[in-house]
Each structure stands twice: as structure tokens, then as C-alpha cells.
């Protein structure tokens, strides 16, 4: 037996471990690739919107103005900006650059820039979404990890039943029912808005009042997070627990806690990407929940825009939300690659 093993198998050493420098390079390359792939997506969203404006019945200006009666100066400015006398490609380029510079249009109904209107509503939407997301993701994943160890047990069955319900209940209907029971009948929670309009609370009281308003909508929205996370985390945990390396960990005599640690990372990782994939559904649920509870977020803004036929605002929200989703997915991909060394190698 030769003392130097490597000498006899040169071909087996072509894939020897590479030092962290090339590892870092792989990460950078991965991130760069992801960034580049987001660009056509964003262009695509803007293009879809542009096409909609021009496909709509009537001329684009009347669509944008809707049922409002803008001043002649405003109309003249709009005509100038849209450049309807210009060739279509020129209009497209101008429109594109306008959006990329943060110009999402002007709401003639509310007499304000669309960007400002949206930005005003972001805190409310994020408060609701993030609270609900954080709380119910944790609950969903924890529940999944707990039941995954004992498949077919009563807890597992109950969790799966709950998950199917969470997937099947329309957010707005659950919102109605919850509202009916807990706000209108039992009067435990307020039925409308983010803070009480009758009192002007400050400091701690304000926070408590906000929480009080937050409970019901966050719960409604959370049912969906719970369902999504439970399903995927359970499947991923089941899968991870059936892997050979779990048997290997047991064979090493590791404590049950340490054995589960082996499954956690591989079991919970998919949850991150799944969130990105479900983001569009989650946002839809969020809009509808906001509407039922009168939560002053982007969803409510959109609802009002729809009834006022405020198309610039509707389109602005669409572009804004779409780009938001694309960027969130980008961040998720990058975060995921930091957790899983294999992804970076691709």
C-alpha cells in the first residue's frame, strides 16, 4: 500500500476542496447572476402595464384621467408627458425611464403623486404583514417540526387538517366571520381601522391601542402563513428525517436533540423559498383582509382607487407591488444561498 494515496489516484483529486477565495467568488457570481436575472422581470412588469394603458378602450389620457375633471393645464401637461403624438416605442422608452426614476404617475382623483400615496400607506401594510408573518411562520414551522417526528399521530392529522383549511378559506370570508364573532358580537376587538379615531393616544397607550386593532386582521392573514409554512416545513422535515445522514447521526450515538438538529437545517431551508413563491398569494390575501378590517394600507388604497376609477393609482400600485415581489424574491434567493453551500456551486 503506497503511503501517498493521492499519487495513485490523480483523477480523484480534481475536485479537491477549494479554498474560501473561490468560494467567495462563487457567492459573488451567484448574486450577480441573480441581480441580472431580475432586470428582465422588472422590464416585463412595466411593459405589461404599458400595454394595458394602450389596450384599454378609449384613448390613454381619458383612461388615466378617469371620471375626474382636471384643469386644462393638467391636461396639457399630461398630453405633453405621454407624448401621444410620438411613435409608440418613444412613448414606451419615456414611460420606462419615468418609472425607473420613481415616477409612477399622478392621481387625478386624489390630486397627488401616486408614489407619495403609496409610500404613505407602506407602514400600515408592513405592520400588519410583518407581525402576522413573523408570528404565524414561527407557529407553523414549530408545529410542523413537532408533528413531523410522529407522522400519522393525532397532532399530525389535526395540523394537516388545519393546513388544508388555511389553504382553502378565502381570506376575506374568514375576515368577515372573525369580524362578525369577535368584533361585532362579542365586542372584544375593534372592527375597523388601525387606531382608535375617537381618542388620541400617545406612547405606550398608542402601542396598546394599535395591538388591539392588529389582533384580528393579523390572525386572519396568519392562517394562510400558518397553512403554507406548516405544509412545507412538515414535508421538508419528513424528507430530512428520512435521509441517510439521519441514520448516520443516530449511528454515531448522538443525542436525539442533536439528531433533530441535522434535520432542522435541511428541513427549514425550503420554507424560505416557499415564502417567495407564495408571496403573490399572500399579498392578495393581505389586500382583501385590509379591506374587510378597514386597515389603512395599500390594499385599502387600492380598493378605494378601484371604486373611484383612479387608474393611474391602480396601475402604480400594480407596478410597485410587482417590483416589490421581484426584489423580495431576489433577497430570498441570496439569503438561501448563504445557508446552503450547494446552491452557490451551480
Amino acid at each position: 500500500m503506497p503511503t501517498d494515496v493521492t499519487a495513485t489516484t490523480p483523477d480523484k483529486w480534481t475536485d479537491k476542496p477549494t479554498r474560501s477565495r473561490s468560494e467567495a467568488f462563487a457567492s459573488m457570481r451567484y448574486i450577480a447572476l441573480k441581480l441580472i436575472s431580475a432586470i428582465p422581470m422588472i422590464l416585463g412588469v412595466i411593459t405589461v402595464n404599458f400595454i394595458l394603458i394602450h389596450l384599454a378602450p378609449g384613448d390613454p389620457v381619458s383612461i388615466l384621467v378617469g371620471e375626474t375633471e382636471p384643469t386644462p393645464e393638467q391636461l396639457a401637461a399630461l398630453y405633453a408627458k405621454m407624448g401621444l403624438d410620438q411613435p409608440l416605442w418613444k412613448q414606451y422608452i419615456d414611460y420606462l425611464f419615468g418609472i425607473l426614476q420613481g415616477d409612477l404617475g399622478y392621481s387625478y382623483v386624489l390630486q397627488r403623486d401616486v408614489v407619495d400615496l403609496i409610500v404613505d400607506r407602506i407602514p400600515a401594510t408592513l405592520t400588519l404583514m410583518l407581525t402576522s408573518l413573523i408570528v404565524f411562520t414561527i407557529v407553523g414551522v414549530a408545529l410542523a417540526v413537532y408533528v413531523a417526528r410522529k407522522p400519522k399521530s393525532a397532532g399530525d392529522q389535526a395540523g394537516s387538517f388545519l393546513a388544508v383549511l388555511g389553504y382553502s378559506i378565502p381570506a376575506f370570508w374568514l375576515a368577515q366571520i372573525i369580524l362578525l364573532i369577535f368584533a361585532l358580537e362579542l365586542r372584544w376587538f375593534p372592527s375597523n381601522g388601525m387606531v382608535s379615531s375617537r381618542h388620541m393616544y400617545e406612547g405606550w397607550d398608542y402601542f396598546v391601542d394599535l395591538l388591539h386593532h392588529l389582533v384580528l386582521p393579523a390572525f386572519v392573514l396568519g392562517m394562510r402563513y400558518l397553512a403554507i409554512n406548516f405544509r412545507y416545513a412538515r414535508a421538508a422535515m419528513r424528507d430530512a428525517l428520512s435521509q441517510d445522514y439521519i441514520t448516520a447521526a443516530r449511528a454515531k450515538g448522538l443525542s436525539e436533540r442533536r439528531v433533530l438538529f441535522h434535520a432542522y437545517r435541511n428541513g427549514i431551508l425550503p420554507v424560505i423559498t416557499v415564502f417567495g413563491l407564495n408571496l403573490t398569494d399572500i399579498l392578495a390575501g393581505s389586500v382583501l383582509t385590509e379591506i374587510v378590517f378597514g386597515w389603512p394600507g395599500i390594499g385599502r388604497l387600492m380598493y378605494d382607487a378601484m371604486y373611484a376609477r383612479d387608474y393611474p393609482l391602480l396601475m402604480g400600485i400594480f407596478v410597485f407591488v410587482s417590483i416589490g415581489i421581484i426584489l423580495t424574491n431576489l433577497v430570498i434567493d441570496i439569503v438561501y444561498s448563504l445557508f446552503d453551500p450547494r446552491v452557490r456551486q451551480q
Partner: protein
Amino acid sequence: MSMTYSAPKPVRPTFRASVAKLHLNTSSTIAIAVLIGMLLFAFLLPLALGTPNAMGDLSFGPPSLAHPMGTDDLGRDVFTRFAYGARSSLSVGILAALTASIIGISIGAIAGYSRGIVDIALMRVSELFQVIPRFFLALLVIAIFGSNIMFIILTIGLLGWPEVARITRGEFLSLREREYVMAAQTIGQSKRKIIFSEILPNAMPPLIVAMTMQVSSAILLEAGLSFLGLGDPSNPSWGLMLNEAQQFLTRAWWMAVFPGLGIVITVAALNVFGDHLTDVLNPRLKGAH
């Protein structure tokens, strides 16, 4: 562990065997029963009932023998409207899923069979449609172009194709490398014949699952749009009924409860059925979506 056992004796493919192949358990049996029941209810019962817009004398009547689901603000029978709503909601769901499937299968087949530039371009477009918030786009389109039931079906269908296309493409990519497809190619069969008689039938199982899921998400999407007031008023769906119920929540809970239950039960049955099909058709993905 590498334990292999010889397969159990082949069973003759009788009807009973093919039903047994579905490996029905309690929950999937219930799901199928609910779906069949709901279909019969939605497409047969409205024929026997009066028009959904017939107004009675009693407004906001609670559930009673005459009106099992109560009456609404205009004195219309909620049960009648529920039955018609089932018809609308299921029609939209099924037709939108069909639209999505036809588009998705065509695009996925083209992408998977041609590969190269065409494939990359088509898959990019489908990725775009997957990140675009479907609900927002549908809302925008219907708000601009008007809420006619055919238009709603088309819009939802047009937004649902990428998922089907992705699955079709994946199946095509792997199936076109199989021996029987290779064999068909070498004996000079036309592309169309190969696609329709060799590849597509074999790609069906995962596509059926995808279509089931399309139906359930289309029903939910339509319900959401109708709830926002974008439904077709001449074809009341469950979503539209919930829209009407919103302002009378305290006065007439039954207006909100029954249509919502209809949606939940139908969608849940579809999801359970779809999950079950996934488990049976692809045991490796057990429990996953």
C-alpha cells in the same frame, strides 16, 4: 438500505383494480364524494329552482323551512342564489383551469420539445407571470375592461398558464429522451404525432394534478374579485354574494356564512383530492405540494 423484493403479482386491469390504484383513504373518499355532490348540485339543482333574482316579501329572513339559508336584503332566497352561485363559481373554476391548461400545455410542449432559444424565451415569460401578482393584475384588467363572466374566465385562465407550462416542459424534457420516443423518431414519425400520441399521454398524471390545483385557485381568485365588486352581476357567484353580505354582516349573518362555506368546502375538497393524487402518482413527493 438496498433491499429489493420481487414485485407482487400483476393484477388484471379491471375497473376495480383501477379504482384500487387510486389508493383511496378516508379523506380522499370524502373529498371525491363532496366534489361529485357539489357538481351535481351546481349543474342540476338550478334547473329545478326559480330565477335567483326573484324577490320575495321577506327581507333579511333568517334560515327557516321555506328559506333554508334565509333571505337577503331584497328578499331573495339565499339558497336559490347559493345554488346558482355554485354553478357560476364552479364554471369559472373549471373553464379558467381549462383555458390555463390549454395555453400552458401548448407553451410547455413547444418549449420542452424545441429547447434552445425558444425554450429559454418561453420560460422567461412564464417566470415573469409567476412573480407578477395575479390577483392585482386580474383586478386591474377587469377594472379597466369590465366584468363580464367570459372575460373573467379568460383573464384568470390567462394568468394561470405558467404553472401548467412549467410542468409540461419538465415532462417533455425528460420524456423525449425515453426509448419509445427515440424509437418513434427513428422510424420517422411526424413531430405532431410524437407529441400527441407518445409524449402527451405519458405526461398526463402530473398535469391532472396541476389542473385540479388550477380549478381551486381559479375559484378562490374569482371569489376575491367578485368580493371586490368585480363579479358579473348577471351571473351571481359565491364571491359576489359575499360582496353583498359585507354591508349587512350584523343584520344577516346567513348571507355571509353559507356562500363562504360553499367556497371552503369545494376548495378544500379539491386540495385534498389534488394532494392525494400527488401522493399516489409521485410517492417521492409525499406530503409536499
